[in-house]
């Protein structure tokens, strides 16, 4: 495998609050190589967004306790001064946010907003930046880009706004694109278009992509590796075949079983994961998933399971033995799918 583009080592992000210490991210490690797509899956509050906001340096360094390493081409972004970080952000790493309705400024023309991002990093005239913006809008598949660039965000539909956001994110030809729930607010037809677009642009721009989502269905077609997060920690990490056809963590099993599937004939009851995600202030002792886990053992309540590799880079943090995991997955999880 190629030299990783981004390597995160034992990242911890803790927020001290009046109610206690919020352990939003608590020991996350992963790597993304050029040309690769990493899917990060987890529920609300599992720390997936905070992890990547920290990578981008968008977490207030004064209010959060951050430890670990974020190596981008071998350089630790956490140690970089703010102005140098600003050069990396946008031009080397950029991000698409979940809600295209609120992440574009309603008072400015779309073309100017994209141009502004270009001008923040390159010494070009406004006119030149605007024409680059038009070119980007064309590349993300917006019809009549010249005309569209002089329109305001409210004149765009949801899917078009998300395309404009992608155009902005890619306008400086970044090496890494982080997409935080890029399709959650969109219709299925538009969702399929946007995911295909991200795939195509990844190849065109030779970038690495991270897709953050709560829906395992979304990432099945588009990701090489998948990291499942729970309560600020990775629960399972592996390539997509590992996750869909040989998952090793009860939380991943729960996610797979709770999806209503279109290609299923039988109208069986869904198997939701019981209970709620834990508070990140009072994370349960031992394995954070144990109160919701159907296979809980005594050891789970005391000892924190380590993320241990099974084969290759497939790893899971669970006290069950490898044989038990394989058996349960085959007999109970796959059988119901």
């Amino acid at each position, binding site marked *: 495998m190629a030299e990783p583009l981004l390597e995160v080592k034992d990242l911890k992000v803790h927020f001290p609050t009046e109610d206690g210490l919020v352990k939003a991210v608590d020991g996350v490690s992963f790597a993304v190589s050029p040309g690769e797509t990493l899917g990060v899956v987890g529920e609300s509050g599992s720390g997936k967004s905070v992890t990547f906001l920290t990578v981008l340096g968008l977490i207030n360094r004064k209010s959060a306790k951050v430890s670990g390493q974020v190596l981008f081409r071998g350089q630790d972004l956490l140690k970089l001064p703010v102005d140098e970080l600003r050069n990396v952000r946008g031009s080397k790493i950029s991000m698409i946010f979940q809600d295209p309705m609120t992440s574009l400024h309603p008072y400015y023309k779309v073309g100017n907003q994209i141009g502004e991002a270009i001008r923040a990093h390159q010494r070009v005239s406004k006119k030149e930046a605007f024409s680059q913006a038009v070119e980007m809008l064309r590349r993300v598949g917006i019809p009549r880009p010249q005309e569209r660039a002089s329109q305001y965000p409210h004149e765009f539909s949801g899917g078009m706004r998300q395309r404009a956001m992608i155009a902005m994110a890619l306008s400086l030809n970044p090496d890494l694109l982080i997409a935080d729930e890029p399709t959650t607010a969109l219709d*299925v037809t538009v969702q399929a278009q946007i995911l295909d677009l991200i795939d195509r642009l990844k190849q065109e721009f030779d970038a690495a992509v991270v897709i953050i989502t709560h829906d395992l269905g979304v990432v*099945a077609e588009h990701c090489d590796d998948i990291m499942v997060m729970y309560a600020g920690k990775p629960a399972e990490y592996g390539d997509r075949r590992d996750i869909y056809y040989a998952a090793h963590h009860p939380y991943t099993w729960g996610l797979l079983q709770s999806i209503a599937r*279109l290609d299923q004939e039988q109208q069986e009851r869904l198997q939701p994961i019981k209970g709620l995600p834990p508070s990140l202030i009072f994370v349960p002792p031992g394995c954070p998933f144990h109160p919701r886990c159907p296979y809980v053992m005594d050891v789970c309540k005391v000892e924190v399971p380590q993320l241990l590799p099974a084969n290759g880079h497939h790893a899971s943090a669970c006290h069950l033995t490898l044989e038990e995991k394989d058996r349960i997955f085959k007999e109970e999880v796959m059988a119901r799918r």
Partner: protein
Amino acid sequence: MSVQVTERVEPAPGAKGTPLIKLTGVKKYFPITRGIIIQHKIGQVHAVDGVDLEVYKGQTVGLVGETGCGKSTLARVIMRLYPATEGQIQFEGQDITHAKGRDLRDLRRNMQMIFQDPYASLNPRKTVGSIIGEPFRLHKTVEGGKIKSEVQQLMELVGLNPEHYNRFPHEFSGGQRQRIGVARALALRPKLIVCDEPVSALDVSIQAQILNLLEDLQEEFGLTYLFIAHDLSVVRHVSDQVAVMYLGKIVEIAPGASLYRNPKHPYTGALLSAVPIPDPDIAAQKKRIILEGDVPSPIDPPSGCRFHPRCPRAQFPTCKEIEPPLEPFHEGQFAACHFPLEDRALAGTALPA
């Protein structure tokens, strides 16, 4: 005073009888005006443009379509939150299109709604107890002293801790808030519940909890659901019958299984093919029909078949000039298309072969 006849024998799902809700040619247009003092009408949004639909007791009818196709407007017209521009709405055989005053209030007791956004549909300044108890106070179905115990029973029913009676909405997670919305909708023991995207704001693992809850409640109280969503996998899971809407019209309606196995309308086919399947191998085999462009504006919908500018099968001039009527195909399956998809033509796209 109530307008319903309650002793009627319930027909089994599928069996005909008086539908609980029957829509005939329902239209809802919103005027577009210009001018400050004297408002000139310069056009109208054809949000719902001639919908016929029947929902039988105990059934779940799913309504799917993209943003802006008029599905939420239709729900609000049925709930009588918007007056219909044209057409007739019948509830248990009674024309309710123009019901008002006392009749309308009695009607609302029988029809309730669950909203999409559990963050916006609960008043942040009221306690959960008073939110769920509000329908009792408005309709005076329970005397003041007994409201609290009734509310606590409801909370227990939907899986909330009754001790949380005095908490405020912000103290609950998204899934729990949606349970509060469900409890409020159930308070008056309605016959019909309109669910407008009840799970689309929730995490997948929590969606399953709410869907199972809705299923259990339907069994327990013989509820009828009109279930609106843009997620076809969810709609397929809950619905007996599925109606697909495009630009204010129903383009296909069929029993859930046959719609998914054998879609007739090219729009249904495209919608189905876009749904992600959580299985990389099957997903890789799937052939996708990518729709070009966006949904046209409902202010000036395309002539003939409204789908023709985006349709991969459109033939000219037929599709541009003649509006296709809803025609029967298989049992209970109707589609409005001049050149429908062949049987099982989509076997490799919508479902694994």
